[in-house]
């Protein structure tokens, strides 16, 4: 397929793999930030072919994985209300809350709909004036502009029966949290290409300098990921720690200014809880007071809903790279893809689910060590 197959060419990919293996004089530990990159790495088996040169730690950049339990529970509460049409991106539907997931609420009569664009949710609100339509506004800086646009548009059109349950997170504070963690093992990052398409990369330069880690803005196709890894490994071998841009066909240094402007007009920086990790100061986006009437938490009085995460789930340590999934006591026993305790076991790209599947093929990866 044009503009896609070029970035998946097996011969070129094998060439890059060889270059990485030739360049690395020791085994480096890199983290890919974004869930989309994890998807490609797992799908293509990149971690496996590079295992002598690089250990890839799957980072916290999967919105499905890091949306805090309390926000899932609030979503479940809203979706169960008979006066609400609850709209969401597809893969949030199977994320376990304290007691069930959105698919189960749907089966019991909740009106839950998958949308591909938050603007579709605004349209549903316009077509259903007798219902309250709530959109689950999750994700990183990538989805923030479209979600901001939905609120903006609803405000312009005076769509009063539309609101958003916001759980937006931003990448740089999470990287700081990982780097400041006493047990941190990450030596370099592949930054999320689409986040940087929106935000540019200048906010990563102070991080690279302060923590002396290479950061390579990287795309999502196999050749992108391999080139990003190669660039990071080269920096590590040279003793450099710079921000480099692999994803030149999409990312400019300053990012997408109109998108940034829209996001800052609708959202402001807030503290945000991350599932399994806890609250990271300044790591989230919340609605500005001018748009408070579109805030589902206020509109439906959800502040009182709280949630306790399972003590058995060590997703936070996994997402920070401190713990390998199979080192978690619940892994493969009490926690499996069919019955997940935490979000990384939910999607096939989640770090825990990826290891769970992989371990069934590779005998040297243990399963369920202490379950």
């Amino acid at each position, binding site marked *: *397929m044009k503009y*896609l197959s070029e970035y*998946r060419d*097996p011969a070129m*990919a*094998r060439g890059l793999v060889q270059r990485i293996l030739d360049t690395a004089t020791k085994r480096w530990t890199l983290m890919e930030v*974004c*869930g*989309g990159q994890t*998807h490609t790495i797992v799908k*293509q*088996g*990149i*971690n*496996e*072919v590079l295992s002598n040169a690089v250990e890839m730690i799957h980072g916290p*950049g*999967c*919105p*499905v994985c890091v949306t805090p339990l309390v926000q899932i529970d609030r979503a*479940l509460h809203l979706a*169960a*209300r*008979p006066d609400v049409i609850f709209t969401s*991106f*597809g*893969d*949030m539907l*199977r994320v*376990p*809350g304290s*007691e*069930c*997931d959105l*698919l*189960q*609420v*749907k*089966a*019991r*009569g*909740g009106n839950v709909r*998958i*949308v*591909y664009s938050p603007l579709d949710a605004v349209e549903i609100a316009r077509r259903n004036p007798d219902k309250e339509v709530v959109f689950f506004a*999750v*994700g990183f800086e*990538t*989805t923030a502009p479209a979600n901001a646009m939905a609120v903006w548009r609803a405000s312009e059109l005076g769509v009063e029966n539309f609101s958003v349950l916001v759980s937006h997170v931003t990448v740089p504070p999470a990287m700081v949290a990982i780097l400041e963690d006493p047990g941190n093992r990450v030596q370099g990052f592949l930054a999320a290409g*689409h986040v940087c398409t929106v935000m540019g990369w200048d906010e990563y330069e102070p991080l690279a300098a302060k923590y002396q880690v290479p950061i390579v803005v990287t795309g999502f196709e*196999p050749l992108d990921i391999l080139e990003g890894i190669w660039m990071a490994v080269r920096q590590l071998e040279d003793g450099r720690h710079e921000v480099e841009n692999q994803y030149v066909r999409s990312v400019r240094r300053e990012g997408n200014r109109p998108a940034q402007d829209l996001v800052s007009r609708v959202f402001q920086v807030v503290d945000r809880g991350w599932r399994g990790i806890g609250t990271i100061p300044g790591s989230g986006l919340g609605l500005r007071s001018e748009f408070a009437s579109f805030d589902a938490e206020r509109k439906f009085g959800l502040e009182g809903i709280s949630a306790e995460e399972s003590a058995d789930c060590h997703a936070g340590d996994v997402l920070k790279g401190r713990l390998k999934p199979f080192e978690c006591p619940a892994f493969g026993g009490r926690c499996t*893809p*069919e*019955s997940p305790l935490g979000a990384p076991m939910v*999607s096939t*790209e989640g770090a825990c689910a990826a290891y769970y*599947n*992989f371990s*069934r*093929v590779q005998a040297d990866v243990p399963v369920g060590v202490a379950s």
Partner: protein
Amino acid sequence: MITTSLRRSALQQVACPTPAPDSGCVQLGHGSGGKMSARLLRERFLPRFGNKYLDGLGDGARVPVEGVEVVVSTDTFVVSPLEFPGGNIGHLAVHGTVNDVAMMGAVPKYLSAGFVLEEGLGFDVLDRILDAMAEASAACGVEIVTGDTKVVDRGKADGLFVNTTGVGFLSDGFRPAPDLARPGDSVLVTGPLGRHGMAIMAAREGLAFEADIESDTASLVPLVEALRVAVGAGVHCLRDATRGGVASALNEIAQASGVGVALSGDLPVPTAVEAACEMLGLDPLYVANEGVMVALVSPEVEADALAALRAHPVGASATRIGHVVAEHQGMVVLRTGLGGTRVVDMLPGDQLPRIC
């Protein structure tokens, strides 16, 4: 085969149950053809109905009738929209059941058809669907010999639901079955993947994308007959790759036979299907087909099997996608272009579009 395509649940009780993994009621995912479907059958249907014919969970059953082995298979069809590029629910209702009979190695002869019609369904739509069934059954060499119609209130059915049951007859020495795969077998698919599922997605309201994709709905009877004539007992397993796609069909075979399936990275996915899947965050390996089967054949007959399949228009692009191995029993593993591996597991429920 017991069909679990339940598209709606009528339970109005709105409350979260405990514990989470068992919802206490039917969910759409129970109709996905994935792990939830399998669990539903294993826990609720088989304990009550189980017998030596049903327990294999094949595409149909081979039952003795006055000393002759006859194949019976039933399937229920629910699709929205009723009409889509490449066909309508009438084509599916004939091809789906006829194909299930064929997967058991039989030549289908008779069909029953039971209809649930929704009050308000236009006669123009109904006529087109019935025309499609008449044409398709004539082309497949089957007759619809008995039937039933029921009408329900507006809002109680999605226009029209239809169940068909097929009866077919076997030839000597040809009994493909899901548990007959052996290490070394070649894994073949008979056509390009993912067309039906993506044609339906593109035709659905609310998805603002247009794609030039037609459903592949087709009878597989001529292909099975061609294989039988060309290589006979060299055919070990046949499975039509309907809901859950090629991935689910191969997982079922791997589990039933206690073998592993190793796929090469080279899968026949049409560009338009690949593009639509990329946009929507879906994996073509799990997308439904209605005119593609997987065939597991002895390696020594692979060339003859492919030649026989390719001689027919429906099988013109038949190709090998992998082979059976003794390792990783019960699992399907894909070797990527890079030389890495990826587990192609059965999905828990429906495939959900990814955010990122």
